[in-house]
């Protein structure tokens, strides 16, 4: 055992986790073939045609693999040492985008370097994960101290604010995934926060579905029941209980205002469609409607590679980017879609497992961050294509067309694989 460790310790790359790498390669390949199918054009029948999206994606895959490999060659300690600097540089580019950026589909999140368009918000997630991991790794920092908790949260909130200013709500929501990290690291209140979040979403949905009055009545009944329970047992803290109910009443009261005044028109509409309050297959519901037809028509085994009719006739907008899952659903059927979902779940479980076996706080926190980020993308993206989530325009990691996202996710994952490969060197 010792000898084996000695052996790997001297290798440059170290002990690569092949399971992660294989899942990664499988997802990337599935993505590339799906883009080929989604954008297939009889006049450019070669998957290596660089004038088309599928050829371009291959270039991006190549670039991503190259940078991923470079990351594996870099000393593992580098990322911890420079985490704060990486974070500052990425935030600076986010800021630059605000000033010089180019608007695409309503969000100002692109910046151009000559012919290459670049989306810094894709890299901001990775940079934030690094910075947070670097901070929590410091010997004098503990999440049990309020000041350190505050600073940790600030690391997350600053990029959220910048991304929101770009009107890129989707990317901002992904940052919510850091709650998993805080929860795992035992930050006091993180579990409660998750609970409150779930409760808030539940109340929000209930209020929209049943109307404010009904929810008030339900809450009032609940309050009376709890009060009765308290009178009988006197176990719980009365003040806290009342506070929770006051908060819930206040929240329900403000739902209408938040929904109508804070949310933008298209966001409101997407939520209404998701909840079945509004049926608009020609307008805001068009994407989801068409996406469900495409996926639903795939059946058990799909129509076969390049045989999708919905795909072929461009019914689903953004089919090669945010709605790439439709192509898989239509052409590979339930077999294909469940395989992809299982691949993601396997990757996530593997990442958590790897994170837990780390010796340093840095690599553990970073590992959880990576898992959380990939989970958010996976859950929101696939959820929206099958009508379980509102339409939020974020890519499916490793599958969607797009250079920035391919590069960012690959580097993000490679950094963790490197940390893991090097874990035995950490004393």
């Amino acid at each position, binding site marked *: 055992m010792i000898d084996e460790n000695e052996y790997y310790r001297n290798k440059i790359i170290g002990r690569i986790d092949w399971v992660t790498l294989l899942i990664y390669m499988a997802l990337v390949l599935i993505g590339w073939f799906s883009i080929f199918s989604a954008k297939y054009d009889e006049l450019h029948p070669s998957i290596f045609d660089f004038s088309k999206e599928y050829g371009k994606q291959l270039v991006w895959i190549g670039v991503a693999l190259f940078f991923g490999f470079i990351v594996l060659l870099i000393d593992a300690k580098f990322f911890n040492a420079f985490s704060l600097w990486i974070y500052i540089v990425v935030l600076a580019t986010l800021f630059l985008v605000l000033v010089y950026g180019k608007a695409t589909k309503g969000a100002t999140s692109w910046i151009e370097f000559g012919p290459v368009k670049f989306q810094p918000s894709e890299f901001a997630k990775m940079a934030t994960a690094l910075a947070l991991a670097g901070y929590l790794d410091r010997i004098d920092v503990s999440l049990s101290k309020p000041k350190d908790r505050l600073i940790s949260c600030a690391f997350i909130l600053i990029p959220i604010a910048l991304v929101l200013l770009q009107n890129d709500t989707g990317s901002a929501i992904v940052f919510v995934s850091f709650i998993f990290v805080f929860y795992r690291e035992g930050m006091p209140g993180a579990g409660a926060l998750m609970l409150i979040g779930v409760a808030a979403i539940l109340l929000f949905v209930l209020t929209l579905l049943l109307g404010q009055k009904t929810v008030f009545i339900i809450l009032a009944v609940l309050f009376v029941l709890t009060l009765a329970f308290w009178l009988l047992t006197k176990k719980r803290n009365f003040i806290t209980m009342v506070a929770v109910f006051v908060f819930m009443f206040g929240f329900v009261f403000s739902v209408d205002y938040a929904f109508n005044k804070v949310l933008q028109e298209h966001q409101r509409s997407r939520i209404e469609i998701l909840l079945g309050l509004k049926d608009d297959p020609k307008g805001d519901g068009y994407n989801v409607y068409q996406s469900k*037809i495409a996926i639903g028509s795939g*059946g058990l085994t799909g129509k076969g590679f390049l045989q999708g009719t919905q795909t072929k006739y461009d019914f689903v907008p953004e089919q090669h980017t945010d709605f790439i899952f439709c192509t898989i659903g239509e052409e590979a059927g339930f077999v294909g879609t469940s395989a992809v*979902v299982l691949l993601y779940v396997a990757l*996530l479980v593997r990442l958590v497992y790897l994170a837990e076996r780390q010796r340093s706080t840095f690599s553990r926190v970073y590992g959880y961050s990576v898992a959380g980020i990939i989970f958010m993308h996976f859950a929101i993206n696939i959820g929206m294509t*099958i009508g379980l989530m509102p339409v939020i325009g974020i890519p499916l990691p490793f599958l969607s067309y797009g250079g920035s996202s391919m590069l960012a996710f690959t580097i993000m994952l490679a950094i963790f694989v490197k940390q893991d490969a090097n874990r035995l060197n950490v004393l």
Partner: protein
Amino acid sequence: MKSKNNNLKTRRLLIYGIFIAVGLIYIVKLFSLQVMDKRYKQLADNNALRFVTQYPPRGKVYDRNGKLLVFNEAVYDLMVIPRQAISKDTLNPFDTLGFCQLLDIDKESFIERMNKAKKESYLKPSPFMTQVPKEDYAHIAEVLYRFPGFYFQTRTVRHYPNAIAAHTLGDIGEISQAELDLDKEGEGYYRQGDYIGKSGIEKSYEKELRGKKGMKVVMVDVHNREMGSFDNGSLDSDPIPGKDLYLGMDADLQAYGEQLMVGKIGSIVAIEPKTGQILAFVSSPTYDPNLLVGRERGKHYQELQQDPMKPLINRAISGTYPPGSTFKTVVGLIAMQSGSITPATCFHCSGQGSLPIKCTHSHGSSPDFANAIMNSCNPYFYESFKATINNRKFGDIKKGYEYWKDMTYKLGLGHTFNTDIPYERPGNIPTREYFDKMYNGQWNSVTIRSLGIGQGEVLLTPLQLANIAATIANEGFYYPPHLIKGFGDDTPIPEVMTTKMDPGIERRHFQVMKAGLRTVFSGPAGTARRYEMKDIPQCGKTGTAQNPHGNYHSNFIAFAPYDNPQIAIAVIIENGGYGATWAAPIASLMIEKYIRGYSEREDLEKRMMEGRITYKNER
């Protein structure tokens, strides 16, 4: 310590649990969506959807009395979806030769049209051949099922039953790339091949006239047969028809004006003073608006564009002319308002021997205001102009000139009205800075004397001239002249057209002016006395404007009846000579036609209609 480890274990398990649970929920949902629910399969199975744009009928246009000026006629556009047409099905190749024969085009043309469509989009329909004639449509449609990817789309084109008012009505045409780009940044309504108003009211009221496109989604099987509407029409939207438009124009008066202008270059603008609505808007030479409709549009457009008489120009708003003596009304009004003259003021006139401007009319030596207007005395108005800008209350002449210029602006000169007439020109009232530059700062009332009699740098459009007549008719106010009277659905017309404009000149001065203009017809020496009618008291002012293009421009402004003006008018006949020769009789005939409905002066009418003026560049 143990409980902490337990806690950690719970937390770890919860995270695993969340990840796995979401995955499971998705797999269950996918199973129900893909395997259990057969509905989606049916929706998508072996069917292609075709999105057929439903074009709404464009709004019709009527004149002020409800007479139809513009309506729609159906035409057929042959559309193509390139991907469906260039199928790789080798058993059933596309019969290009047969298709070319059917449409009577050659193979090169086929390829060219197809490439244009491909460039636009492979998957969305593009026009392959627009406005296929009705007789061809029938026999092509019959066999079109043999050619997948092709289908007909019905659309309407404009038709003009009276063939009048081409400049006012304007035309529609296929949207240009520049217009598309502009639209893309804003509303994003148009697609390549759509029609859009290019000029006239078709342009100014494009949004109201066009309505809103609808969409029909039909399922098409592999044999290019329509299999009915998709998902029970849940995706379809009905087109919303465009609004009808009522113009202030009187179609009979307009037609009469165009007849009177045959053989002359120039313009007639008639305004209803009480509302600012334009009653007649003639630019001569004109053309038949039906020429710019249909497949020959491009050819006809080119011919009209190359015509040396430039019939496409709307001279009523784009022609800027020296107003000549008609401008004396403006000079006189401003002189009175500034207190520089009164109606009793007399200036000396030595006829031909006057300095610095001679007088072309013979009258008594020291005319008062009424006399000067009736005789169009040049020295009188030069002196009035000089008295205004030299008025002591302004301090110096430059400030005096600025006051004068500001007053002309308030009377609607030197700027556009910006109502509903596209491509309006502002004319020219020179600024003080212009003269400073021109004369190196050394100028005085003598230097710029010609302004006092409407010559020199002053340029007005016929529309502005007519508006002066309307303002005097109203005794001191005007509504910005506009074409529209109302929409078919009673939407109010834009506020800019119903805002009363006050030039800041007292009503009593206008009354003096009005009485003076009456004598131009009724007075013993009035310059238009030959066109006086006993029962319709007219007011007017002749103008004979020197210009660099040959003989004088014949100008006239008028309104009538004196007590309750119904019509205010300006007429300009390029190189027509004296104002009283052409412009005054034509204006008088227009007034008579509008008020009486016909002309009792048949000889005059005939002479005017048949009169021709020879132009240098005429061939």
